[in-house]
């Protein structure tokens, strides 16, 4: 699972739908892997306005990275120096993969497991809607 996906997944249980703290999930005992991927600057640019930066900071802190800037940096498409910034974002969002570990919903404390980089969102029958 890419780091990018952590900025979008939330708890699957119906009672957590409206809850504020069901997103982002809390990540613990995560095993990370860096995997090289094609660099698509236009995708990064397109997804930037949709990112929830505070959630990125929180998840990054869960994973042990507290060196990110507290504000989403402004990006001017025409500025060549932004290439480096986009590359950094690419490395963080796309190339960082979560291979093994747990995701916990802070609202209902349900634990979702990540195995072989596939998160398991199947719910037990008593929680299924």
């Amino acid at each position: 699972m890419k780091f990018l996906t952590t900025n979008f997944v939330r708890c699957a249980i119906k009672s957590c739908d409206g809850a504020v703290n069901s997103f982002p999930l809390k990540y613990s005992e995560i095993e990370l892997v860096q995997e090289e991927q094609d660099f698509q600057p236009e995708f990064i640019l397109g997804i930037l306005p949709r990112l929830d930066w505070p959630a990125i900071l929180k998840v990054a802190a869960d994973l042990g990275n507290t060196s990110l800037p507290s504000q989403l940096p402004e990006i001017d498409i025409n500025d060549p120096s932004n290439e480096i910034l986009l590359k950094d974002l690419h490395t963080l969002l796309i190339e960082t993969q979560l291979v093994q570990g747990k995701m916990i919903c802070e609202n209902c404390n349900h634990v979702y497991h990540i195995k072989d980089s596939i998160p398991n969102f199947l719910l037990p029958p008593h929680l299924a809607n």
Partner: protein
Amino acid sequence: MSRPEQLAPAEVFYNETESRKYTNNTRIQHIQAKMTLRALELLNLPKDTANFILDIGCGSGLSGEILTEEGDMWIGMDISPDMLATALDREVEGDLLLADIGNGIPFRAGTFDAVISISAIQWLCNADTSNADPKRRLLRFFNTLYASLKRGGKVAAQFYPMNDNQLDQIQSAAKVAGFQGGVVIDDPESKKNKKYYLVLSAGTPDVQINLEGVVMDAPTKERKLNKKQMKLMETRKDYIQRKKEVMKRRGKSVANDSKFTARKRRPRF
């Protein structure tokens, strides 16, 4: 035609052998690719940017590979672990999620540009366990799907409805969730190649869906006549046959129909 939905739940049916068979069969690969391209054509997404797409029922990633070729980023969801394992072996680019779509799409609001789904949503109409209510599952699916799309986001979902009832069920659930759109039927005359695509949009899209080559076919409603009008329209022969029918139903003995029934008696013999 065999329907896998009637045999076993998806996570059971698509076991190791079935998913390998599914992925390695060139005929299936060909059909899947064709349907994916058609769904993309219907979505009419902007070509110059990389879109963020959700693939529902991604299976082994046959449709996802095409999305990657188109330069889009995608996340796939499937309920069958064996299918996803096959996808991992094939080293697909997109992210994979093991989830039951009937329990909702676990993404926050406004995540995706578009949603694609090939041969998956008809599974929602089945009650595989005693506590599964297809109607509730369909609603939950469409409600969360609506939320996970950005405003103006579009859905193109190819599916195999078992009958008209299922088609109605799916369409009305989508409507209740707030989607606009309908069903596009490709090759409507052919029984074998007939394909249903549910094409929806969440809010008004900036770029309309691509309906090139689609013929609108609204059912023409026949005006129902009342009894009096029916009687006026009736010929003498119709009248006699109707009366005979009524008498037969009442158990009276009625002369058999022949070519002489209700014929005019000519003056000459």
